[in-house]
């Protein structure tokens, strides 16, 4: 050991160069800035969208705007900005889509998480990822070209571009997110629960139904809510597939128009700074607020899961 002790004296003490330390400080500062950037962007989005729409807020009769169905933004004599029908349009297409997507999504999540293993499970997950990857414009095109014809041919509908068409597309688009979040929620339930249930002689389905559903309740709720959020915000598919008529639907075969589609269709034709232009930004604020609340609820539900 004497050898290594003399070694000890010859060895230089460790010290990092000033440049290295300074470099590290700089990168940590950048990391911190990037860290808070998410907050900046969320506020930025809200503020910039509000900023463009704000001058119009005082000029509108808001009960009329929110509840009237009369959306005539380009009328020569009597401009009316009633978004009631648009809200109903958004809600009806989202609601109908969820009627398909939630049971199918959660059912598929259960199948992937509890009834399949190994290769089957891996394959299904990949397929679901693929489904999630299909761009909304492609869905819209499918709605316009394929579903349109199918609906006209096989269902008693006068037009193929309608509420049902949009809802089916939205359902297919939001199912992947419901499946993946739902599967996470089921995966989060400890295996000991499953084993305990099986040990008492429960079948797989009984385990799912009586043990996993109650235990993963919040996560599944979050999955459904995120699906809703996705559906409300969807633009191109509903723009192309729902028929684009300002209308309160009386049946699922009626054409409708959503908040998102209205912005997408009309923003290009408005002059910057005009009332119509500002109104579209205000619709944006409304959309932002709706999805904000939905996502907040989903987040709370997920957090409920973690606390358990």
């Amino acid at each position, binding site marked *: 050991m004497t050898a290594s002790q003399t070694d000890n004296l010859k060895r230089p003490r460790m010290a990092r160069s000033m440049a290295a330390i300074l470099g590290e400080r700089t990168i940590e500062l950048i*990391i911190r800035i990037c860290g808070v950037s998410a*907050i900046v962007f969320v506020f930025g989005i809200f503020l910039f969208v509000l900023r463009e729409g704000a001058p119009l807020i005082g000029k509108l009769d808001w009960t009329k705007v929110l509840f009237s169905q009369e959306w005539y933004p380009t009328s020569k004599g009597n401009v009316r900005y009633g978004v009631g029908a648009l809200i109903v349009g958004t809600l009806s297409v989202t609601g109908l889509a969820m009627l398909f997507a939630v049971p199918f999504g959660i*059912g598929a999540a259960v199948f992937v998480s509890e009834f399949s293993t190994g290769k089957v499970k891996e394959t299904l997950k*990949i397929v679901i990822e*693929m489904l999630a990857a299909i761009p909304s414009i492609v869905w*819209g095109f499918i709605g316009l070209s394929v579903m349109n014809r199918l609906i006209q041919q096989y269902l008693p509908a006068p037009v193929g571009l309608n509420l049902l068409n949009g809802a089916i597309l939205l359902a297919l688009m939001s199912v992947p997110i419901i499946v993946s979040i739902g599967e996470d929620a089921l995966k989060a339930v400890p295996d000991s629960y499953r084993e305990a249930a099986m040990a008492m002689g429960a079948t797989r389905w009984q385990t799912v139904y009586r043990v996993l559903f109650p235990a993963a309740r919040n996560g599944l709720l979050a999955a459904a809510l995120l699906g809703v959020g996705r559906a409300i915000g969807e*633009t191109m598919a509903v723009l192309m597939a729902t028929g684009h008529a300002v209308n309160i639907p009386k049946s699922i075969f009626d054409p409708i128009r959503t908040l998102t589609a209205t912005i997408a269709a009309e923003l290009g034709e408005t002059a910057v700074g005009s009332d119509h232009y500002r109104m579209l930004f205000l619709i944006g604020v409304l959309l932002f607020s709706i999805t904000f609340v939905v996502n907040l609820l989903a987040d709370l539900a997920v957090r409920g899961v973690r606390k358990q």
Partner: protein
Amino acid sequence: MSASPFTVTPLVRRNMRRELVARIVLGAMVAAMVLPLLAIIAYLVAKGAPLISFKFLTTNPTHGMREGGIWSALLGTIYLVVIALAVSAPIGVLCAVYLNEYAKDNWLTRMINLAVVNLAGVPSIVHALFGLGAFVLFAGIGRSILAASLTLAIMTLPVIIASTKEALAAVPMSFREACWNVGASRWQTIWSIVLPNSLSGILTGVILQVSRTAGETAPIMFTGAVFFKKIQPGTLFAYSLTDQCMALSMHLYTVTTQVTNAPEPLPYAIALVLLGAVLAVNAASIVVRSLLRSRKKW
């Protein structure tokens, strides 16, 4: 008491029957998702594939977009995606590093996490409004590739943050502690141990965003994409940052809704190219993931 403890009672039989029914119903639900996917792909291939050729991909559209190829749209999409991710990937990764490696459990961290969740939920058309209001008008960039890419960048940011965070969290805590114990600073630990060992996950997340970004339409409609733009063929540098551009997604929208008398297979071919590109990128990310996972070091 029955003679054998393993006799099948009516109750057990009923349970087994229910189990079978549940399995079939759930399987059918999965099939209801998988089959449309396959049907869509098959249909697009059948309708669009005959039109697709190397020439189709590399020539510009002509005759009011009714003839020619899709080169300008394809190149525009590449520009948008590359620039958007060049902006959002570093910011997103560093934000995730902050959240996973630096952030203490306090109100600021909770705010950031909440912001990320909500940013992910902002509708794409609202991103478009933001891009128009902030980049095009307020910052004075004008409708351009740059403005559209920045809009896309912010849209992809939360997903990159989320996937990176997950990848970072998969690196065991004990590695970090071992590094701290020998006097490595936080950043040295992150740079030499945490990042190299979460790279596969981070890359997968970023690659997945390539496919999402390529397919987006709404955010670029009012910030930089145009129906038609003539560009110089045969060069990859035909667009500049301040140019407006065509994009595949926008081109599909234009051809299906604005162009009258377009040849029938044309939109199918465009959709097929877009879908093919997106799915190919997706498949690539899956390959990267499994490749790097098999080389796992612990």
